[in-house]
């Protein structure tokens, strides 16, 4: 799997905000096609900054963030919050990326229906966002990300606000989606369990300015199910990640 094509190449990217806060020290990271890479770290360690750079929402001060041609323009972002338009029904929210791209008609309707089916929200297509639970709103948000059939999915602590049971279920679904839709995913989380469950490779990020520590490779095929949570590979990954996290937190925090 290590000879796969690079989807994202980050070289020496760093970022200092106008208020003088240094968010990142130079970061080098390569995300290869078809893998799920997670960034784990405490709040304010620059994980989101890095993700926003990959999305093109933020430019690095120095260095470069490059997407392979096959991935450029085929990227979708899932935010910490569901960020749905409260004035639009679920299906209209999911259709938004297509409409902004000028896609309409039967083709678009079909893609919306397919995306809703992927996240199990088909019965709620006509619902209003406020009628859905937090977990279901997040599914709608994921459906919206999937509707353009992206190859790279950027996820910024998408399940951080959900209860543990819902989060586990959605993590399983992400693992299945990655396998079936051949997605490459860069996933930010503050949960080492989520990172251990989802990752092909995981990186712990130290507190501000964020730096990546050595990668933790979790070699198990996707889709992963609940049985994986009881496997030695999962347990070992959790132990290693939590040790790295403790080391990272041992440094002075700004």
């Amino acid at each position: 799997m290590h000879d796969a094509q690079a989807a994202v190449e980050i070289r020496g990217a760093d970022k200092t905000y106008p208020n003088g806060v240094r968010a990142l020290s130079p970061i080098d990271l390569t995300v290869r096609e078809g893998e799920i890479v997670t960034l784990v770290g405490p709040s304010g360690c620059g994980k989101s900054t890095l993700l926003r750079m990959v999305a093109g929402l933020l430019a690095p001060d120095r260095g470069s963030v490059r997407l392979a041609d096959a991935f450029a323009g085929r990227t979708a972002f899932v935010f910490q919050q569901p960020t749905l338009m409260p004035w639009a029904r679920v299906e209209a929210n999911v259709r938004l990326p297509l409409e902004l791209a000028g896609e309409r008609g039967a083709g678009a309707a079909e893609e919306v229906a397919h995306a809703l089916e992927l996240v199990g929200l088909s019965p709620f297509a006509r619902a209003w966002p406020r009628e859905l639970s937090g977990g279901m709103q997040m599914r709608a948000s994921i459906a919206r990300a999937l509707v353009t059939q992206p190859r790279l999915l950027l996820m910024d602590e998408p399940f951080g606000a959900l209860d543990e049971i819902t989060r586990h279920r959605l993590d399983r679904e992400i693992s299945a989606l990655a396998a079936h839709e051949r997605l490459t995913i860069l996933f930010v989380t503050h949960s080492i369990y989520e990172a251990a469950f989802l990752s092909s490779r995981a990186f712990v990020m130290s507190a501000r300015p964020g730096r990546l520590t050595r990668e933790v490779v979790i070699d198990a095929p996707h889709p992963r199910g609940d049985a994986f949570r009881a496997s030695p590979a999962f347990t070992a990954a959790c132990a290693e990640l939590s040790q790295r996290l403790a080391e990272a937190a041992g440094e002075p925090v700004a």
Partner: protein
Amino acid sequence: MSAAWLRWIGPVAVGLLFVAGWHAAVTLGEVPHYIVPSPLLVAETLVADWSLLARSLRFTLEVTLLALALSVLLGTLLSFLFVQSRLIEASLFPYAVVLQVTPIVAIAPLIIIWVREPFAALVICATVAAIFPVIANTTLGLRSVDPGLADLFRLYRASRLQTLLRLRLPGAAPYFFAGLRISAALALIGAVVAEFVAGTGGTESGLAYQILMAGLQLNIPRLFAALLLITLAGIALFLGVSLLSWLALRRWHESEVSSPG
């Protein structure tokens, strides 16, 4: 009893008690009708003078509704202009405030002198009185975009127009309607005040003119009848705007999801 009933029964009971108390006080105290007429006499006058009063009511309503429509149109366009750049907003907003804090009674005579057409002059006065809440609220609403949704629109390379129509406009709707309620009341006040200032100038005349003339003639029952019509017009206007707001927001916005206001 359901909550919906309670919301109606309270105000209606207070209203009936008030009218009954008024009637009792006037009858028992033998107050002359040129000081305070009884509610019954006001009702009789309303019927007797209906053709006169209805024409005036229509005139005042025309001024008010036209001014409200102009406020919405111009106010919304100005808000669009304001959110295009901070410089434009910073340069123009103080003058919108000047317009707002200068009492309409003070400007009305000038407008009436400058604008020869009386109807147009009244509409302008009422518009000046009513436009500020629409500008201020809609500008605030257009600026209060969910930053996450703004990022989403940027990610999908939405054009300025797409962002305005699909994100800023629907997001501003609750703010706009809050402003509209205030503007509706101000448009009526502006229309009435301007008419008072214009006095007997015009050929057609509204409710304020009737009040003015009835006062001069000591026709107090007619004055009360005209006053009642202004109040009813104000209530109808408020309910109408509330209904619009409810229709637009009931599906999704917290302020309107339960029941009509």
